[in-house]
């Protein structure tokens, strides 16, 4: 609308400055750091350039391998489960229900609060030896489980926390569902398609853009989960819940291995980037975009 290019540039100059200073520069710096043996408590000028040694060390590092496998387990468990559950609840909620606002609030609330320390703290109590879940189990005369103390179950508490936060994905799915015109379902009724058939032939294909969006958001978030492991399990026991972001933090701020931690953060970044790129590349195969409004002009009556 405005023709003055200089003024325009001025308007977005905060972003340009911010991008260069707080995004681009740190981004490149972390790559360079990963090629050094920088130590947090020393000056940067004392660091030496060691090439790809950090990356090599990584693959010999059993802790890293454990952390990596645990992280993948976490992501591959939570993302599909969370999306499926969010979609299921959105489908359940999607009808002329007067209390829809109430239910939506109830389900959405945990995802708003979930990222907070308070919830993580509560979660730790819920899963503690004499915490809520074990009390419930005792009530039902089932034995208690040492959730946070057993390597096999510690991860479970983190997975459950993330699933509990399905609300935001559900709200997005709901909006996508509502955007599908109801007369498509009526036409399908007349054509003889069962409800289930309609879900797979009409609802899912038309939801693919929303599924795509949610999928990417969830993957990017899941790989970067920090609060849970740090506060609830401390990464243990025996590193069974030692997610990568926690490892990066400890390497940098506990063991002061800045170079190694940077290399780890770059590996994490590359993993996320690969998944994101794969998702984008696969779009054309499975995501359907209805770019035009198929209903034409406004209705007469």
């Amino acid at each position, binding site marked *: 609308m*405005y023709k003055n290019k200089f003024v325009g540039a*001025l308007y977005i100059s905060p972003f340009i400055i911010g*991008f260069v200073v707080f995004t681009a520069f*740190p981004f490149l710096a972390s790559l360079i750091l990963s090629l050094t043996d920088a130590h947090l408590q020393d000056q940067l000028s004392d660091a030496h350039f060691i090439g790809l040694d950090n990356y090599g060390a990584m693959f010999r590092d059993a802790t890293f391998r454990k952390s990596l496998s645990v992280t993948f387990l976490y992501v591959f468990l939570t993302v599909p489960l969370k999306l499926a559950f969010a979609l299921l609840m959105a489908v359940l909620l999607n009808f002329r229900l007067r209390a829809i606002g109430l239910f939506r609030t109830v389900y959405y609330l945990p995802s708003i609060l979930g990222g*907070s*320390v308070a919830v993580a703290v509560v979660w730790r109590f819920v899963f503690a030896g004499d915490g809520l879940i074990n009390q419930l189990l005792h009530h039902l005369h089932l034995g208690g489980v040492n959730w946070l103390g057993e390597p096999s179950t510690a991860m479970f508490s983190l997975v459950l926390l993330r699933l509990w936060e399905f609300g935001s994905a559900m709200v997005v799915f709901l*909006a996508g569902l509502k955007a599908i015109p109801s007369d498509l379902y009526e036409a399908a009724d007349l054509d003889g398609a069962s409800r289930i058939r309609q879900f797979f032939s009409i609802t899912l294909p038309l939801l693919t853009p929303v599924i795509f969006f949610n999928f990417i958001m969830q993957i990017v978030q899941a790989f970067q989960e*920090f609060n849970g492991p740090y506060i609830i399990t401390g990464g243990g026991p025996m590193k069974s819940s030692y997610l990568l972001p926690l490892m990066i933090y400890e390497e940098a701020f506990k063991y002061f291995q800045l170079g190694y931690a940077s290399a780890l953060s770059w590996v994490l970044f590359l993993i996320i980037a690969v998944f994101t790129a794969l998702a984008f590349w696969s779009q054309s195969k499975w995501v359907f975009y209805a770019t035009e409004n198929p209903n034409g002009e406004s209705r007469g009556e």
Partner: protein
Amino acid sequence: MSMANWRKYWPAVSVTLRYGALIGVGFLMLYPLLWMVGSAFKNNSEIFSTVGFIPHDPTLEGFRNGWKTSTEYTFAHYLVNTMKIVIPKVICTVISSVIVAYGFARFAIPGRKLWFALLMATVLLPKSVLLLPQYLMFRQFGWLDTYLPLYVPQAFAVEGFFVFLIIQFMRSLPRDMEEAAVMDGCNSFQVLTLVVAPVILPAIISVALFQFMWSMNDFIQPLIYLSSVGKYPVSLALKMSIDVTEATSWNEILAMSAIALAPSLILFFVAQKYFVEGVTSGAVKG
């Protein structure tokens, strides 16, 4: 005859089933929070013995002791600290996002497509890869153990998602009002502040609310930048309490957790609409 007429009754049956499932899941969702609030009002021995969330002998003991905290500051001090971080953060975010969004939405900027692509890239960029260099940078500035690293970047629209939200909103506005204002003699900044900003207020509120929530929950940033306990926001204070407090004073910790969540809860209930629209407008239109 009843088999042929089952279609008449099916709606009622399916509605009942739906409600049943919805209520069941809803209860499960809320239970941890209810338990938290209920336990905050119990004394410690009761927390360990009962499953229900309604206390038999409600007591404010948890709140009283928790408020004092086992440090030299009361919980109020930590709450104020949180506000000292969150409020500047929200203000900086809103102002910079609106200004940058206006630039993208209404100006013919050289290289616009490139800058917009970079903006979208920041939305997807995993922030963990920037954490360490940013720490070093702020150390270089001498900003460690201050609140500056927590909100200064926001003044430079680093949160691409918010800028994007506002751009979308602006794009859906007809330009007539702005063109009329220009004809009335306003420069672009006046148009933005006097004409556009009031109209896009819902989007601005959404941005402010989201940033408020996210900042209240922010943990890792304060964790790495703040070292003096006196500067701790609530998130760090809570974490500290579970390290320090003996294992049995749960009611204190849960009480403080409840208080920590209260502002977010209240805000959420009051302004739900904006949360929902904020999340969905990015997804469905995007």
